[in-house]
């Protein structure tokens, strides 16, 4: 049951790669939407930092978006 989601993520990744990265994407002049501040993957670094710290100290998992580590000594 828990294996399933890992497989799902990997299949999605493979699908993107297999469909050929070259056929995906946009021309440089089509980046108007993607260039917006709220479309950046790290658009909210502080919100992420606060959430990550909270979850890091309350759950057994951390990381994914980047490296977790460095947090409190409680876990």
């Amino acid at each position: 049951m828990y294996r399933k989601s890992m497989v799902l993520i990997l299949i999605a990744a493979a699908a993107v790669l297999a469909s050929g990265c070259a056929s995906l994407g946009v021309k440089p002049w089509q980046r108007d939407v993607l260039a917006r501040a709220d479309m950046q993957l790290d658009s909210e670094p502080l919100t992420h930092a606060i959430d990550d710290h909270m979850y890091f100290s309350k759950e057994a998992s951390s990381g994914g978006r980047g490296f977790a580590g460095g947090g409190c000594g409680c876990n």
Partner: protein
Amino acid sequence: MQLKPKVSVGADASRMRAKVARRRLIAASCALLGATAARSQDATKSAADSMSDEWAFDSALAYYHESGRVKAIEPIVNLSKTYGDGRTFSGQVVFDSLSGSSPNGALTSTKVQTFASPSGKSLSAAPTTYTTSSGQLVSESAPIYTINPGQLPVDPSYHDQRLSMSGNWGLPISRLTTTQVGGKLSYEHDFVSVSANAGVSRDFNQKNTTLSFQLNDEFDRLSPIGGAPVAASDYALFQKGGGKTKDGVGAMLGLTQVMNRRWLTEFNLSVDRFKGYLNDPYKIISVIDPSGNTTGYLYERRPGTRTRKVAYWENKAAWGRLVLDGSLRYMADSWHVRSDTAEFSARWWNFDRDRYIEPTVRWYRQTAANFYTPWLDSGGSKYIDYASADSRLAAFHAYTVGLKYGAKIEDSEDQSSSEFNVRVEYYQQTLDHRTPGPGSLQGLDLYPGLKAILVQVGYKF
């Protein structure tokens, strides 16, 4: 030939003259443009001003409150800058102050339980001994605290302060390749962590595909108050040593792909491995006899290594005034914890795009570590392999609901724009596999879970 070499001179000297001449030229240009701009009625910025890049400032203050337990205040500041040549710098300073009650790992009982608090500050005095109501010997100058029947044992005097600083530099080495180095230092009175990371990323396919690889190295030193307990030792015997260390290395492979004009996807695969003292020095485990009486406590003992693998997939898409962000994460570690996380947020802008609301939902579940146990049986083997009653290693599921509101403030005076935002989040953990306690413990709620609220205000410009 240089700008003003009247006589033929050596290469070094002429190069220096060229530099001096260039500086005079820049000064002359600025004088020309600056001077006339100042005279002009409506021009406000001189050429020299518009040449300098500006710092982006992002700050937030978070207040976290667990019902009946800890409260934390966390101010955090982020400064970042992109230089004209593409270099980037980002630095973050976080301070947090935590106080309140923290579960010590012991099980709720039908009797009064007494513990010594390791987290009090007045611990340098000579050790004294107490004989507690349950007949145990506690040897420490620590204040003692008692827990009433039916209550979850929490250390009421838990407090901690953390100061953490990090910096990251991005250095483009070609049009498509960027290297990145960073470091982080985190300091608490009983814990110091130092880490460094380095990475490289490369763009392909007209910058629609980015591959990145990062390495991280971390070193932590724990110096718990009163020393780090010997793992799996009897709480009453108070066997404590000095400080302990742990260290970790991690690697992450990332793929970012622009799918179309309004959809961006990211995959990250990461592995990390920690080794050393991985116990929580403040967590104990109740030893219970078949009739439900607590016969003692042991310090927890976790394996000396932990390897984690994480797969992460995030999608971001914009549709009109809506920005959708969804992510899935899967984690598996060598302690047999498996977890799934799904997070989704939708930011909805108003027509003028200067206000937004953003609801967030997050769902999380994990399986228990293979050495998690809510208690130890008194009849069991005296020599335990690994055991922890830390609920963070138990099987549980959790959800978060949140709402964020943001407003942009345009300053017509100096053409700057800033954003103010408020966020409220509610987090709840519910333990799974709620094995009933033996004997008298049968009717008690041994798995109280966790409820917390987070309020955050932020300001950035």
